């Protein structure tokens, strides 16, 4: 019987835990702390943090061949299924009205994707210097952090660089939560007070029919020019069409709520299950965190500068502060534009104007993701 006790103890955490697992538990606790106390993207970071705790319990085997986290990970993460359904739900929550009222703001969403590809260069540069060991696929997956769009990051990482899925996802959501801190200094540095005070005229009303047909137009362009973006943008447009059509409200409601919540729980746990000590505790993670921050900064700057460039050509000037919203991080980045705009002129409500580039940024990073998938296929 003593032998049995000895076995029980020898399999317990106290006896077998490694410093790496202990450190990862601290990482998990940090994520949970940020989610609860600081409200950093809690819908994802709380489940990810808890998944990190669970996967690093020595001897629990929750990530092993018949462990729950393993099942979740195989069914929904490795297959890419979960991010696609999240994208459907996001589509069902998106209003393209502001974008349709002012389509040229799509170009701001395009410019902000420079954050993605600039980071790719940064990552291959780091790798060439020998600091870290990123392949070109890894670099691409890291770059997508700059898309400031969680499900796109998860989808691309799961397809191109599964071993980096954990740190990439954590970096993406963390920086999205930090947008209110990261963006304002860059926005102010790149604009004059006069530019920040530019008032934009009110957006025209967009008809229901335009909103219904728009997702089909997007899908058509994807089909014609970039089929590799079809899974992401297809599900996004499907969700949006369900919402705008107004004839399947019960489905659209489920896509936004019930189904979205179920998948979010699973997705969080599944991403958490990629946060093992071996996968996270290496110098590459530091590289990813550094590059992710760069990606957000470059994207923000590129959006603002693009707006200034456009002002050289258009009659009615646009406030360059809405350019930063092109990084996505919906709706946080648009609120930041609004806030910085109000600081310059407290009659200057930019929120609705910034929603255009904001959702354009979602399309833009999905297109960038499609280019990457096509590049490596």
């Amino acid at each position, binding site marked *: 019987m003593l032998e049995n006790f000895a076995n029980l103890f020898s399999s317990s955490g106290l006896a077998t835990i490694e410093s790496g697992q202990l450190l990862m538990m601290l990482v998990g606790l940090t994520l949970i702390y940020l989610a609860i106390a600081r409200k950093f993207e809690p819908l994802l970071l709380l489940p990810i943090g808890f998944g990190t705790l669970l996967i690093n319990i020595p001897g629990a085997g929750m990530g092993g061949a018949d462990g729950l986290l393993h099942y979740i990970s195989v069914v929904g993460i490795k297959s890419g299924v979960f991010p696609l359904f999240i994208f459907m739900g996001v589509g069902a929550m998106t209003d393209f009205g502001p*974008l*349709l009222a002012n*389509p*040229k703001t*799509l*170009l701001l*969403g*395009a*410019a902000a*994707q*420079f954050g*993605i*590809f*600039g980071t*790719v*260069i940064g*990552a*291959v*540069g780091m*790798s*060439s210097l020998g600091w870290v060991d990123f*392949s*070109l696929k890894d*670099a*691409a997956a890291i770059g997508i952090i700059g898309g400031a769009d969680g499900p796109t990051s998860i989808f691309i990482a799961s397809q191109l660089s599964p071993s980096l899925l954990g740190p990439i996802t954590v970096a993406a959501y963390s920086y999205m939560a930090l947008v209110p801190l990261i963006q304002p200094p860059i926005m102010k540095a790149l604009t004059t007070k006069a530019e920040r005070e530019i008032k934009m005229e009110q957006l025209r009303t967009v*008809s*229901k*029919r*335009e909103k*219904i*047909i*728009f997702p089909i*137009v*997007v899908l058509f*362009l994807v089909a014609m*020019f*970039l089929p590799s973006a079809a899974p992401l943008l297809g599900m996004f447009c499907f969700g949006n069409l369900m919402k705008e*059509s*107004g*004839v399947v*409200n019960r489905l659209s409601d489920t896509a936004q709520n019930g189904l979205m919540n179920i998948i979010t729980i699973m997705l969080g746990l599944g991403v958490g299950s990629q946060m093992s000590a071996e996968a996270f505790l290496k110098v590459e993670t530091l590289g990813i965190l550094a590059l992710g921050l760069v990606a957000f900064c470059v994207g923000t700057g590129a959006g603002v500068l693009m707006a200034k460039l456009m002002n050289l050509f258009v009659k009615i000037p646009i406030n360059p502060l809405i350019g930063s919203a092109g990084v996505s991080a919906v709706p946080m980045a648009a609120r930041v534009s609004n806030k910085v705009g109000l600081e310059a002129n407290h009659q200057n409500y930019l929120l609705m104007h910034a929603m255009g580039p904001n959702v*354009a940024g979602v*399309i*833009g990073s999905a*297109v*960038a993701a499609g*280019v*990457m998938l096509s*590049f490596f296929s």
Partner: protein
Amino acid sequence: MPELISGGITLMVMGMSTVFLFLALLVVMTRLLSWLLSKLPEAKAAADNSQNSASSEQQNMLEVAVVAAAVTKAHGR
């Protein structure tokens, strides 16, 4: 230039140009869409229709209930 870096640059050039071309095309298509729809006369009616449609299923159910109630009353119970 090492292959990795040249790969990254290729990816950047391809990526950014595709993103810009795609979204620029989308600007054009969106303008075209809005212009076309503004030419179509029945725009208003259709929009109204589709707004009502959401509640059509409920209306159907309501109709069922109303008729049921009418029948019940007519027979005096």
